[in-house]
């Protein structure tokens, strides 16, 4: 592998002081190859949801970076994640998307692996291997660290990575909104069947930075706003709850995560929403009251899109969903999309949301169709020799963020940019790329866990 860029070179590619990022990091094949080593084998990655492997023997084939992995619940009920590659000659041991199985048998030479990844069957074990092969050493490669956080299954290949909650830090507040029930009940969500998977001809970082908080691209969605698909019949979304709210961009640059949100006024009360359907409207109204009761001040947060570094993005409000941007070469991204609903919601609510999710999201979604067009042609128009000489501009709102945000008694962690008047800012993107640079340059997690030394870099 040709390594064109020494670690020190990355500071020139991501110029934090001037708010600029080189196009090379999106289009250069050598940098892409380095990302696979330095980011995707070290970061925590989203693998799937526990409701996808509810019963013993259930499996869901997922992806960590470029590589296929199997998420599986073993016969004892324990969840595992292992590399989908036979230890003998590398064949994919499972080429199904999901299902239930007592065993994974490699179709090439017949090695078979139990649902916990252990090698249990080797053809000609007695005659050809003379019973000398130590099967315990040839289990499928298991991830050294895995966590089930409120139903979301995450894993990392780096045994020295910090624990997941340390990796997430103060961003936990926003991840909780995604996975908790709408009434605030812990982990009260489940996946609707059917994971969207499709290819986008763009580098994986384009969608990741779009979801981390690009409020600036409203013009992209002008057409859907004109025709209206929202749950109250107009626009893209239901905005009645935003009355009087502040618009805040929240970044955790030392970790790379970020989100945008609206913060309701201190004494705000739940307001009716989803008024196309009385059952749905009543459900959300009751949930809002229950959540306000549970969460107090935190209830004021109306969470928007966000990204957990590097490639897991989400929408905690409707269309409530998770997107993972799997890298497939510098110029291709395979998008996987999971959709969440409250497990205990009435069938009418689940059905209402299912229909809204479909018409909003993914390749057929009236909103997101236009996003793919942007990522496609922004990427392809950045590949040329001339284009590469010129950095992208990320200067919006530089120098206006605070690290001690407080409003009506609610203090927020992270670096907060108030975009109520500005309407947009790019501090979240700057935070994402400064973390990207650290990942590309750092030797190990001792260097990457900057917050342990109080060295979190602001931007």
């Amino acid at each position, binding site marked *: 592998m040709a390594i064109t860029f020494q670690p020190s070179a990355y500071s020139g590619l991501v110029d934090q002081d001037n708010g600029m990022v080189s196009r090379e990091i999106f289009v250069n094949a050598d940098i892409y190859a380095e990302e696979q080593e330095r980011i995707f084998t070290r970061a925590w990655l989203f693998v799937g949801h526990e409701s996808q492997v509810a019963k013993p023997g259930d499996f869901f084939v997922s992806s960590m970076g470029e590589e296929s992995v199997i998420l599986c619940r073993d016969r004892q009920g324990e969840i595992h994640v292992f590399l989908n590659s036979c230890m003998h000659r590398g064949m994919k041991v499972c080429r199904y998307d999901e299902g239930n199985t007592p065993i994974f048998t490699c179709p090439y030479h017949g090695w078979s692996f139990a649902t916990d990844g252990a090698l249990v069957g080797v053809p000609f074990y007695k005659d050809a291997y003379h019973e000398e092969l130590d099967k315990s050493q040839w289990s499928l490669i298991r991830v050294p660290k895995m966590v089930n956080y409120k139903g979301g299954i995450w894993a990392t290949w780096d045994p020295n990575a910090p624990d997941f909650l340390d990796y997430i830090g103060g961003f936990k507040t926003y991840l909780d909104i995604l996975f908790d029930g709408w009434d605030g009940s812990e982990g009260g969500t489940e996946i609707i069947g059917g994971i969207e998977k499709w290819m986008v001809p763009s580098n994986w970082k384009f969608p990741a930075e779009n979801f981390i908080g690009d409020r600036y691209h409203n013009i992209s969605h002008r057409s859907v706003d004109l025709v209206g*698909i929202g749950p109250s019949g107009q626009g893209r979304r239901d905005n009645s709850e935003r009355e009087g709210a502040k618009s805040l961009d929240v970044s955790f640059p030392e970790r790379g995560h970020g989100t945008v949100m609206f913060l309701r006024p201190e004494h705000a009360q739940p307001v009716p929403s989803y008024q196309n359907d009385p059952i749905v409207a009543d459900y959300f109204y009751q949930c809002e009251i229950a959540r306000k009761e549970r969460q107090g001040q935190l209830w004021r947060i109306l969470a928007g899109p966000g990204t957990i570094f590097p490639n897991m993005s989400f929408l905690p409000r409707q269309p409530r969903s998770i997107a993972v941007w799997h890298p497939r070469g510098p110029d291709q991204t395979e998008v996987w999309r999971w959709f969440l609903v409250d497990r205990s919601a009435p069938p009418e609510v689940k059905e209402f949301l*299912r229909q809204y999710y*479909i018409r909003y999201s993914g390749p057929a979604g009236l909103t997101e169709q236009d996003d793919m*067009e942007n990522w496609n042609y922004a990427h392809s128009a950045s590949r040329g020799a001339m284009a590469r000489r010129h950095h992208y501009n990320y200067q919006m709102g530089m120098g206006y963020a605070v690290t001690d945000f407080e409003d009506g008694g609610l203090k927020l962690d992270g670096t907060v940019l108030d975009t109520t008047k500005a309407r947009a800012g790019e501090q979240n993107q700057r935070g994402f790329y400064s973390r990207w640079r650290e990942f590309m340059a750092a030797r190990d997690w001792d260097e990457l866990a900057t917050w342990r030394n109080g060295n979190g870099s602001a931007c």
Partner: protein
Amino acid sequence: MVVANDPLAMLLLKQDVEAFLYHEANLLDDRRYEDWLDLLTDDVRYWVPMRRNVKFGELEREFTREGQDINWFDEGKDTLTRRVNQILTGVHWAEEPLSRISHLVTNVEIVGVTPSASDAEEVALRCRFIIYRNRVATETDILVGRREDTLRRGDGGWRIAQRQVFLDQNVLLAKNLTFFF
């Protein structure tokens, strides 16, 4: 294939239905989207499932379920009309400039007729399609699959009451689905 006790009526019906399908394809390819909407009944169901790799013997789980799972499309006329209106805004960037599209419809078979071929009010048919989409400069998608339609006789001719589209892809290779099947 329906066992027809009136082969001539069946032949004429097939000719009639095929002419309708080609007319419909032409409306889409000629970008006459509003005229195309007029060919759909008010209660039309339009369903395009996603498709999984599943074990032999579990093929009933191959497709995501209509009305229950996430599907590429699972909707009626209201949403389809909004899709047309979105293209007609002129600022739907995924279709601006408009794509060049050809629908090739083939392997047409009538699989059910009500009440009979000679005075058919409703026809169930199966066909194959190739959709070729080319847009901007070199961007090209080719989507191939099976379609199952229910046509109902309305004022002025056939109307589409149900369309089910089974794509021959697992990971969708097109970046978006801004067109109709």
